[in-house]
C-alpha cells in the first residue's frame, strides 16, 4: 500500500479508538514521539526511586520501612514495564539508559527536588503519585496498545501509593507539634513542583495538539492541573495544613479553584538542569549503571557458556 493510504488507515484507526499494536504500520513521527514519551516516563520511575530510596534506611518504624520498600519496588516494576513497552517500538533499554545518562533524555523534574524530612515521603506519595495518577489514568485508554496496558497495571499501584502517602501526612499532621511542622514544611516545598508536573500552560505546549490527535495525550496540561488542584485542596483541609498559595480560592462561577501564578522561571531552569538535585540524580544513576557493568557482562558470559554446553551435549 502507498504511504498515503497507510496514513489514512492509521488515522481512521486511531479516530475509531482502536489500539495500534507493535506490528501495525505507524507514522515515523508517532513512533518517535511515543518512544520519547514512554522512555521519559520509564526514566521518571527509576530516577524517582532515588529521593524515596534515600529514606528506606531511616524510616521511623518497621511498618513504614516495609511500606516504603514495597512502594519503591513497585516504582522499579513500573520502570520495567515501561522500558518493555518502549522496546516494542524498536529501541533497546540500554540505548534509552545511555540517553538518560548523557542528558539527552528527560525525566520528570519533580525528582530533582530533595527529600529532607520524613514528611517528604508522605508528600511525595500524596501529591506526586497523586499528580501522576491524574496524568496516567487517561493514558490507560491511549492509542498505543502496549503503553495503554502498562498504564493499567501502573495506575492500580499508584493509587495505593497515594493513599499510603496521605496516611503518613495524616499521622504527622495529627501528631506532635514537631511532626505537624514537618508536614507543613513538606507541603510548602512540594506543592508548586507538583503543579509543575503537568507541564507548561496549554499556550506554551506546542506538541500537545498533535499528541492529542494521536490519542497519546487525552487532556490538556491545564485541564489536568485544574483537576488535581480541585481534588487536592479538600484533602489538605482534612489534614489541617495550609496550601502555600495566598491566591487559592474557590470560584463559584467557574466551579473550580483559582490559584496563583506558577513560577515558570524555576520550572524551565529545573528542566535545563539547574534544579537542586539534577546533577546528583544523574550521577547516582550513571554510577549504579557503570558499577554494575561487570555484573551484567558476567550474566551474559555465563548464559553463553551454558548455551554452548547445552549444544555440545545435544550434538553428542
Amino acid at each position, binding site marked *: 500500500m502507498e504511504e498515503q493510504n497507510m496514513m489514512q488507515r492509521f488515522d481512521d484507526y486511531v479516530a475509531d479508538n482502536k489500539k495500534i499494536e507493535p506490528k501495525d504500520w505507524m507514522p515515523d513521527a508517532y513512533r518517535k514521539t511515543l518512544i520519547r514519551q514512554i522512555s521519559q516516563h520509564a526514566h521518571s520511575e*527509576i530516577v524517582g526511586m532515588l529521593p524515596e530510596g534515600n529514606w528506606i534506611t531511616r524510616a521511623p518504624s518497621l511498618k513504614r520501612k516495609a511500606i516504603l520498600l514495597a512502594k519503591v519496588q513497585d516504582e522499579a516494576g513500573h520502570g520495567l514495564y515501561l522500558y518493555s513497552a518502549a522496546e516494542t517500538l524498536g529501541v533497546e533499554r540500554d540505548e534509552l539508559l545511555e540517553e538518560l545518562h548523557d542528558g539527552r533524555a528527560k525525566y520528570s523534574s519533580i525528582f530533582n527536588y530533595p527529600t529532607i524530612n520524613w514528611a517528604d515521603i508522605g508528600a511525595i506519595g500524596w501529591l506526586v503519585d497523586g499528580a501522576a495518577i491524574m496524568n496516567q489514568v487517561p493514558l490507560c485508554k491511549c492509542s498505543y496498545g502496549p503503553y495503554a496496558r502498562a498504564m493499567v497495571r501502573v495506575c492500580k499501584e499508584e493509587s495505593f501509593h497515594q493513599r499510603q502517602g496521605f496516611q503518613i501526612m495524616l499521622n504527622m499532621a495529627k501528631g506532635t507539634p514537631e511532626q505537624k511542622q514537618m508536614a507543613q514544611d513538606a507541603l510548602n516545598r512540594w506543592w508548586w513542583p507538583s503543579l509543575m508536573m503537568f507541564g507548561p500552560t496549554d499556550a506554551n505546549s506546542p506538541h500537545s495538539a498533535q499528541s492529542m490527535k494521536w490519542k497519546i495525550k487525552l487532556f490538556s496540561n491545564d485541564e489536568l492541573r485544574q483537576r488535581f488542584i480541585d481534588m487536592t485542596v479538600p484533602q489538605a483541609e482534612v489534614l489541617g495544613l495550609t496550601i502555600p498559595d495566598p491566591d487559592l480560592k474557590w470560584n463559584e462561577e467557574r466551579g473550580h479553584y483559582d490559584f496563583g501564578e506558577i513560577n515558570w522561571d524555576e520550572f524551565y531552569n529545573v528542566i535545563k538542569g539547574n534544579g537542586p538535585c539534577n546533577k546528583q540524580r544523574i550521577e547516582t544513576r550513571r554510577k549504579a549503571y557503570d558499577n554494575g557493568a561487570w555484573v551484567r557482562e558476567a550474566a551474559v558470559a555465563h548464559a553463553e557458556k551454558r548455551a554452548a554446553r547445552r549444544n555440545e551435549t545435544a550434538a553428542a
Partner: protein
Amino acid sequence: MTQEQKFEYLLRLGDNALILGQRLGEWCGHGPALEEDIALTNISLDLIGQARSILTYAGELEGKGRDEDKLAFFRDAHDFRNVLLVEQPNGHFGDTIARQFLYDHFAWLLFNELMQSSDEQVAAIAAKSIKEVTYHRRHSSEWIIRLGDGTEESHAKIQQSINDLWMYTGELYTPDALDEAAHAAGIAPDLTKLADYWHENVHGVLKQATLDIPEDGWMQKGGKQGIHSEHLGFMLAEMQHIPRAYPDAQW
C-alpha cells in the same frame, strides 16, 4: 530454658533478619540492573517482615511492653544479637551476594528445622518464612554460579568476596551455651548437625561456580553475645535517629 534465655534466642533470629534487611535496603536504586533492584528490595522486604514477626513475639514474651519498634529503634549495639556476617558492609554487588549466599544457606537449614520447634509461635513463623528463604537461597546461589562461571573479572571478584567473608561463617553454625539450651528445650535444632549440611550445600554451589572453597581457619565471633564489629553502630545511628529524636511521635 528460662524466659530470658528464650527472649535472647529470639533476638538472635529477629536481629539477623532486621540487620540484613536494613543492609539490603541501602541498595535500593543502585543495583546493577533494574531486575536486581527489584530482587534485592524484595529480599529486604521479606527480611524486614520476618524481623517484625519475631521481634513482636520476643517483646510479648518479655512482657515489658516492648513492641517491634521499641526493640528495633531503642536498643543500642551491645543489645543486638545478630551474627557479625549480616552487619558487614554491602561492598560491591559480589560482596553483597556472597554475604547473602553464606547466610541464606544457613537460614534455609535453620528455618526448615524451626518448623518443628516445640514453640508453636516459632514454628509458625518459620513455616510462614520458609518459602521466602528458599527463594533467597536460590537467588543468591544462582548469582554465585553466574559470577563464578562468568567472566575472568567476575570470577576473581566473587572469589575474593567469598574469601573475605568466610571468617564470619563459623559463628553461624558454632553453638554457644544459649544455642545448646534452645536445642535442649526443643526450640531450636542442634547447630553442629546443621554445620555439616551447610558445608555440603555451600561447597556444592561453589564447585559448580568453579570457585575455590576456603579453609575453615580462624573464625570471628561475638555478634550473638552482643560484641559487634565497628559497622553496627553506624547502621543503628542511621536507622534509629528519627524515632530517638522524636520519642513521643507515632508515624
